[in-house]
């Protein structure tokens, strides 16, 4: 007969406030093969673990159930504790009586107590039939893929490369920088954004450990933590990167002009162009959808003028295979499209622009060379309206979350506006002001007082054109009065949304996104830079809206986590995976097709199915689909599960 130990945690009052832990411990103690049953205020604390260790030694236990919080919190803690006493860690199981019992039944104490007892009894059934298992050791590739060349991807790449790891950095645009390349100055120090970014981007370009692929996308990913196999698609730039010197003669001579998305619709760009002036790398690409050569073959101007003969119309997309051990997803954000915001004129009013548009206007290399003018007629706007929380914090119609940057961005915009147009009047519509990072509140207060900014607490209901001006209808909830401003220009602080294509990328990486498309972290507090898939890490606004300071901090945190992961030669993986009873398997192959991780393979010689132990995630899909019950999960067999179910229903 087994000698089992049961340890029930109070979790302060989290569990003990609802479940009568003493009586549960007493009842469980009467079970035949339970040699030890105890309760304690915090089992995860050092004295709590000591209780477990002593009981294993003193009572000679050969199986342990800890009834406490979710296994995602402390399973590892307790498995380490039993291991220190020579017990196989897989003989220790968690009975979750907090999230699945006490927290959800706070008003039904008696029932909760009965349920907690049943959960423990069921877990005992599992432990009785658990096998001793050994972790699976997997070789590890010590290179890293970083997807996204904004400030998050740049920071993570540099940190990893400085740590000695090789990095492959992918950027789908022709140059590094992301949205930071569009910014004028940053809060709260009002440093020029571009110079700081330029410095880091140039470092990336030069770094011997970083392989930079711009105008490139991730096409396919296979494998698992430590061993990812990638296919990268380098889009045809139509410019020979080796020959091009970035002189810009082709750009000057290109006859095709169209509206630039980078300039938020306020500037023009050429069919052969760099992403922005002095971009890193500073070499142009041909945007084939605009180029006359590619549309009808009518123009060869760039080819004619290029002194280096670098134009290559015949260039094709290139596919490169790479192997890495970990991936950083730093895909960044977009602004909620103003074309979808009816109350602000569906993007049809030229003098209503979004925050990035205003940033371009304020940038010395932007469409107005840093001058604040109305896009419609080039006049200096004397009445400016800034609207915060546009499409943010609006669960009924738009995004329920706070985009976090808008309060500070708007204060910065109003400050710069007031400096450039001292006789101008900025009005700022806000819901409330969130300035909770270092130096932010001080920046904000100073700006409001010095620049005498007019903050109006309330929402704007409509914006429309009237008499050549932009009329803004809103409310000031502090006075309870309707406000109507005849403005010259309006700047919308639109919500941050995940950038296009993140869902597809996440699917390729088997990472998850939330209902808004932001990548989800493994745990909001304890594992904030890890995704729920091992080996996939997160940085920047692709995970949630954040400003540059937070993005850089998170990117560095991600880089440190990956350095820790890659610091060993072998990776230990949980052995709780599928296995095949070779006597029963008929080799039908259903499991091979159903496995989402490509972990099942047919053995052509023996005609039976095998499990690739490094790939298997223990999801159980093959087990459910096997017509012969030839497949089982280690320490999660059908007989174990059925006995657990019996405990609940009997």
């Amino acid at each position: 007969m087994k000698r089992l130990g049961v340890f029930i945690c109070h979790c302060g009052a989290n569990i003990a406030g609802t479940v009568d832990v003493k009586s549960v411990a007493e009842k469980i103690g009467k079970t035949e093969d339970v040699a030890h049953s105890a309760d304690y205020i915090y089992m995860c604390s050092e004295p709590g673990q000591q209780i477990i260790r002593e009981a294993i030694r003193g009572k000679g236990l050969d199986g342990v159930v800890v009834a406490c919080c979710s296994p995602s919190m402390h399973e590892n803690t307790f498995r380490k504790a039993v291991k220190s006493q020579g017990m196989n860690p897989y003989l220790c199981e968690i009975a979750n009586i907090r999230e699945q019992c006490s927290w959800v039944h706070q008003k039904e104490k008696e029932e909760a107590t009965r349920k907690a007892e049943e959960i423990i009894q069921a877990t005992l059934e599992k432990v009785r039939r658990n096998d001793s298992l050994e972790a699976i050791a997997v070789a590890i590739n010590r290179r890293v893929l970083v997807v996204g060349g904004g400030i998050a991807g740049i920071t993570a790449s540099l940190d990893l490369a400085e740590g000695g790891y090789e990095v492959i950095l992918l950027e789908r645009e022709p140059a590094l920088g992301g949205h930071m390349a569009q910014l004028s100055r940053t809060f709260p120090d009002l440093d020029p954004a571009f110079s700081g970014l330029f410095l880091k981007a140039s470092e990336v370009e030069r770094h011997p450990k970083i392989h930079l692929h711009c105008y490139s996308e991730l096409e396919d990913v296979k494998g698992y933590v430590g061993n990812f196999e990638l296919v990268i698609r380098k889009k045809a730039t139509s410019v020979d990167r080796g020959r091009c010197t970035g002189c810009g003669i082709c750009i000057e001579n290109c006859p095709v002009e169209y509206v630039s998305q980078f300039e938020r619709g306020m500037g023009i760009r050429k069919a052969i162009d760099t992403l922005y002036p002095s971009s890193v790398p500073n070499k142009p690409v041909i945007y084939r959808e605009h180029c006359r050569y590619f549309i009808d073959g009518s123009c060869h101007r760039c080819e004619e003028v290029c002194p280096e003969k670098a134009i290559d119309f015949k260039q094709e997309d290139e596919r490169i295979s790479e192997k890495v051990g970990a991936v950083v997803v730093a895909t960044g954000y977009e602004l909620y499209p103003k074309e979808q915001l009816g109350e602000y004129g569906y993007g049809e009013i030229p003098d209503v622009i979004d925050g990035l548009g205003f940033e371009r206007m304020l940038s010395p290399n932007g469409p107005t060379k840093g001058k604040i003018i109305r896009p419609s007629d080039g006049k200096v706007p004397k009445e400016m309206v800034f609207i915060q929380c546009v499409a943010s914090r609006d669960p009924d119609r738009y995004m329920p979350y706070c985009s976090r940057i808008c309060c500070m961005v708007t204060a910065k915009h109003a400050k710069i506006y007031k400096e450039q147009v001292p006789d101008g009047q900025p009005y700022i519509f806000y819901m409330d002001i969130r300035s909770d990072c270092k130096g932010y509140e001080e920046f904000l207060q100073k700006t409001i007082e010095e620049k005498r900014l007019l903050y109006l607490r309330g929402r704007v209901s409509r914006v429309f054109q009237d008499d050549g001006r932009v009329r803004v209808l809103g409310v000031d909830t502090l006075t309870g009065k309707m406000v109507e401003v005849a403005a010259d220009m309006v700047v919308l602080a639109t919500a941050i949304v995940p950038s296009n294509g993140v869902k597809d990328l996440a699917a390729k990486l088997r990472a998850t996104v939330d209902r808004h498309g932001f990548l989800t972290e493994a745990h909001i507090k304890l594992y904030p830079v890890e995704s729920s898939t091992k080996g996939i890490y997160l940085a920047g606004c692709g995970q949630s809206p954040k400003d540059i300071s937070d993005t850089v901090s998170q990117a560095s945190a991600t880089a440190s986590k990956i350095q820790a992961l890659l610091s060993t030669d072998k990776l230990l993986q949980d052995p709780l995976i599928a296995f095949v009873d070779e006597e029963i398997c008929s080799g039908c192959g259903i499991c091979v097709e159903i496995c989402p991780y490509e972990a099942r393979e047919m053995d052509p010689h023996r005609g039976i199915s095998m499990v690739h132990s490094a790939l298997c995630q223990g999801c159980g899909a093959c087990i459910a689909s096997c017509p012969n019950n030839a497949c089982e999960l280690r320490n999660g067999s059908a007989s174990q599960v059925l006995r657990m179910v019996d405990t609940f229903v009997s």
Partner: protein
Amino acid sequence: MDYLYFPGCTLYTKAKNFDQTARNCSLLLGFELKELKNWTCCGATFPLATDNIMALLPPSRILATAREEGTALTTLCAICFNVIKRTNRLIQGDVEKRDKINNFIEKNYQGDLQVLHYLEILKKDIGFPQLKEKVKKPLAGLKAAAYYGCMLLRPFEEMEFDDKEKPALFEEFLEALGAKAIEFPYKIECCGSFQSVGSPDVATECAYKILGSAIKNGAEAMVSTCPMCTFNIDHKQSDIKQKYLDFNPIPVFYFTQLLGVAMGLDYQTLGFDQNAVDPIPLLKEKGLL
């Protein structure tokens, strides 16, 4: 084809001209408005408090009665349309409230009735191109501003009438009649509604903004779908004139009155005597009478 029709109280009193012209026009367009039996007031406001089930009873009773007679219910007044359509949606989606209401009114109504507005019949069932062909006297040269107000459109996910910020259905209707539809930014702003009772100045100010904006954009007349709006923007024009001396009143039509003109109805049946600002001089000037 016949449509089951809910006139509402105002259309029997202050807005008889709205009711009569709608009925007469429908006959010329090949359908009849069949009046619902034993109808009552719709309640005139959709309750804002979620537990105010009492206010849902009149529209629920109307819906339940209508379902006994047919599968769709047509309204003209924008407020009735709003109250009845929203109540219908609530009954469709909220089983608990549905049971409570049915229990009280002693009916078993499941929300399976379609609530229509007369303009929707014109657009979807008749079709604006077909309407254009049926027009006998196109309103050529008449610059009319379509005024939606709030009730036809909002809350837009419940009313599902047209785009919430940039509706166009009403303008399409006017263009089908041959008129020139004037765009003006205040076409979906509130008329002041019941403020005209408690704070008449507020309502007058609202009406002045709406009318002023329409006139500035070239409107010679306003077109309304709502007796409440019409009261504020038509009957209040004398108050506006007293406050703003340079204000020149313009007539306000119910859309069915203009439809009547275009369909060639005798102008004496169009009920212009109930309009505050007399539209006859304008119509004569445009050669439409």
